[in-house]
Each structure stands twice: as structure tokens, then as C-alpha cells.
């Protein structure tokens, strides 16, 4: 069948925005035949720029199969229709025009990206990230696509969540079953006086949304146990930030994360001192390499004399957020294999070398990512005191 030179408004060669999206979901490519300067100002995410002058040749070279499903769009649908007709004449059977082009897209209130691949607002919001060569536009897009799980929305989780949200980590998971209490406000900056009594995960969501609407919060109002650990930790996380400071949970998290191959950024604080490390499965040691078993309750240090300088979790949790971002971006030297110790009173930082133990019950010789799930152990809680104050 040969189509005429006159533009023919035929159902079979033109679709609306919804139709174009449905085709894309089915695997259709999407080509934008406008000029590069128009593309810079605004384009639809996932479209490929091939300007009109070389559009037919470019598309034929890129998709030699004349049965390839392709959407073609421009500003309002005129240039793209010409391209579609030429391709049909050349024997392409599944090429369609996107009626109304990007103007119709915008009229429907759909988001557009700039040349950077970010929206105009994101370009502005993340300009100080994009300016760093190690992050750049690609790194920012990676952060926006990342999933980071925070265990605990308390002292360590507060600065970690706030900075990760501000940094544009696209999905932040929060696991906590507590409600906000007044005694939390000395250090837990996610929460506020007027949210006392509110679930911490809900209070945190309010805080994170207020900082960055790009962020999706997945809240788990629960305490991690052997029964739910696979489900919660197995929901596709790129990095886990452990701010629980609760020994039984440390072991649960370790055993699941090693099995799933997820790096854990570990932080702990006590009075004036904090520690941070990264447990990167099989690349460095895990928690059981350091402590194969928890101490028996009679030898576990008492927790009754707890207490912490309010600013300390701000420092340690921020270090954890930094490590999480480095892991997502794949930049720098992480704390895998090193333990950073911060002493606020002495104002000193020490770093210890941690090594993988070939006899480790979780990650030693003979273990690998995947395979049969290890049996999880709910060690008894050692402290009468709430573990996630």
C-alpha cells in the first residue's frame, strides 16, 4: 500500500499520548525529530533525538527491521507525520505518529526533561551535585533511581534520611515501630514537637516530603524479626543503612544482607563515641567476621547507663549517608574493611583495619550470594531498655 504525499489522518498511523505510552510499554522505540535546541529545553523521558533532516536515514540505520515498532513525535505532530509517511513508503509497517507531539504531552501535565535528563526543577535542585565531576548528571540520575533502606528513624536514621532525601535518593525505605517521644527531640531531627505521639515512620515521611518531593518513602512500621526480615530487606534495596544499635537486629540484618549481597552501612553511638563501617558482602568482612556470636547475656555490658550527646548521631548518621551515596554512585573508597571511630570528647578519629574471616559462619569460605537461605536467629534482646531510643 502506498500512501500519498498529502498528510493522511489515519488511525493506524497516528496515536494519542496514551496510545504512544501503551506502545512504549509493549517495547516500541520513541524518536523525537525536533532540533537539538528544542530538545534541550524540554523532552519526554526515554525518547531518542534524531532531527528531521536526517530522521528517515537515521531511523533506518538504527532499526533496520521494517517491522520494528516505533513512535515518532515532534513539537505538534507535523514534522513527525512527514517522517512517518516517508518510513511507511519505505516499507516500515509499525511506525506511528504521536498526535499533538510534546505540546499535547505538556498539556496533559506530564513531566518533561531538559537536555541534562533532569526536569527543570531538578536541574536547579541538584545543580551543586551536577557541578561535581564524580557525580554529574549521570550520578544524579543514578541517585534518583536508587533504593536505600534505613533501619531506624531515630538518632542515626534522622540525619541519614534527611541528607539522602535532600540528595535525591529516589526511594527511601524506613523501618521503625516507635512513636515520637519528647526525649527523642534532643537528637532526632526528623521529628518535631507537634508530632509527638505520631509513628516515627509517618513523622519522617512528612519531614522528607517537605525537603524533596522527588523522594518516594516506603514505610515499614514494624520491628525487624526473623519472620519479616526476608520480606523487608529483600524488597530490592541497593544499600541498607543500619542505625538500630540493637544487637539481635545486627545479626538478622547481617545474615540476610550477606545472602542477598546488599552492602550495609553500619553505625553505632554511645555517649561521646561513634563508629561507622561498611559491610560489603564478600568484598570485605561482615558483622559475623567481627563477632561470630553475640555475648551471653550475663557478659553483655549493661545498657542501663545509656545516653548520648545529641549532636553525635548527627555526625555518625551523616557519615553513614555519605557512605551510602558513595556506594550508590560507585565512587571513592568506602569504609569496607575499615572501622572509623570518632571520639567527640577527645576530638579524634581512628581507623581500624577489619578483615574477612575465612571461617566466618555467614560469609566464610564456601558461602556465596544466593543459594539456600540461611536460618535466621532471633537472639534474645539483651537490654531491658528500649533499643532504639
Amino acid at each position, binding site marked *: 500500500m502506498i500512501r500519498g504525499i498529502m498528510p493522511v489522518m489515519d488511525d493506524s498511523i497516528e496515536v494519542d499520548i496514551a496510545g504512544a505510552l501503551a506502545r512504549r510499554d509493549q517495547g516500541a522505540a520513541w524518536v523525537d525529530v525536533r532540533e537539538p535546541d528544542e530538545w534541550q529545553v524540554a523532552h519526554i523521558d526515554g525518547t531518542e533525538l534524531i532531527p528531521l533532516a536526517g530522521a528517515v536515514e537515521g531511523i533506518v540505520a538504527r532499526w533496520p527491521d521494517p517491522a520494528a515498532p516505533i513512535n515518532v513525535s515532534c513539537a505538534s505532530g507535523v514534522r513527525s507525520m512527514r517522517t512517518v509517511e516517508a518510513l511507511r513508503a519505505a516499507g516500515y509497517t509499525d511506525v506511528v505518529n504521536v498526535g499533538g507531539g510534546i505540546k499535547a504531552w505538556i498539556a496533559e501535565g506530564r513531566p518533561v526533561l531538559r537536555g541534562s535528563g533532569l526536569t527543570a526543577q531538578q536541574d536547579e535542585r541538584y545543580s551543586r551535585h551536577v557541578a561535581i565531576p564524580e557525580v554529574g548528571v549521570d550520578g544524579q540520575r543514578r541517585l534518583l533511581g536508587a533504593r536505600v533502606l534505613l533501619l531506624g528513624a531515630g538518632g542515626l536514621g534522622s540525619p541519614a534520611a534527611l541528607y539522602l532525601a535532600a540528595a535525591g535518593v529516589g526511594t527511601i525505605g524506613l523501618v521503625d515501630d516507635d512513636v515520637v517521644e519528647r526525649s527523642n527531640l534532643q537528637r532526632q531531627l526528623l521529628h518535631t514537637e507537634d508530632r509527638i505521639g505520631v509513628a516515627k515512620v509517618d513523622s519522617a515521611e512528612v519531614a522528607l516530603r517537605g525537603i524533596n518531593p522527588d523522594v518516594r518513602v516506603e514505610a515499614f512500621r514494624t520491628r525487624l524479626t526473623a519472620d519479616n526480615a526476608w520480606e523487608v530487606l529483600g524488597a530490592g534495596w541497593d544499600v541498607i543503612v543500619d*542505625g538500630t544499635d540493637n544487637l539481635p537486629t545486627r545479626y538478622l540484618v547481617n545474615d540476610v544482607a550477606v545472602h542477598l549481597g546488599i552492602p550495609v552501612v553500619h553505625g553505632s553511638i554511645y555517649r561521646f563515641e561513634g563508629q561507622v563501617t561498611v559491610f560489603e558482602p564478600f568484598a570485605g568482612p561482615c558483622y559475623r567476621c*567481627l*563477632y561470630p556470636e*553475640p555475648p551471653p547475656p550475663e557478659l553483655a*555490658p549493661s545498657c542501663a547507663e545509656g545516653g548520648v550527646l545529641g549532636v553525635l548521631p548527627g555526625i555518625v548518621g551523616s557519615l553513614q549517608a555519605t557512605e551510602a551515596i558513595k556506594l550508590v554512585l560507585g565512587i571513592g573508597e568506602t569504609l569496607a574493611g575499615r572501622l572509623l571511630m570518632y571520639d567527640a570528647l577527645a576530638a579524634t578519629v581512628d581507623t581500624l*583495619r577489619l578483615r574477612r574471616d575465612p571461617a566466618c559462619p555467614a560469609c566464610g569460605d564456601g558461602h556465596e550470594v544466593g543459594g539456600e537461605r540461611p536460618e535466621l536467629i532471633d537472639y534474645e534482646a539483651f537490654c531491658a531498655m528500649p533499643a*532504639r531510643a
Partner: protein
Amino acid sequence: MATFRIPPVLRPLTDDQVKVESPGATLGEALEGLFEAHPALRERMIDTDGTLRRFVNVYVDEEDVRTRDGLETPLESGSSVIVLPAMAGGAA
């Protein structure tokens, strides 16, 4: 002579001292001096068979002594010894 850095959770056993000096050519010798001054530490750190308890890690000059010679690990004058038990509590 080595300087032991006592972790916060064990400081009640060293009269709240953060740093304790003790002479010795090996970690084991220096620990004996430490236990003489602060006897309650021994049970927390040393197992009934005389080895380091598994939930207490000791680092001499930033290296885990289990990857060196354990209690036989030699000390230099001015060696720093960091004691790090698995932490049970804290306030996150």
C-alpha cells in the same frame, strides 16, 4: 609499654579511665598488668581457656590481633591497643 583504650561500656571497670598504660613485650603480658590494676576486666575479656573471648576484639596498632599472633602479638614501645567488645546497648 602499651596504651590501652578502654571502650565506654567497660570503663565502669577501670574507674572511668579511657586510657590505661601497661608494660609488656606482648599483648598477653600487658593484659596481665592491666588485669592486676583492674581485676574485673579479666572475666569480660578472657575466656575460661585463657584465650580472648570471641565477642571481644583487640587491635594492636590498628590490626586485629586474631590476624596476628593473638595474645602473643608483640608490642612496640608506644603501641596503642584498642579493645572493642560487641556492643549490646547504646542510644540510637
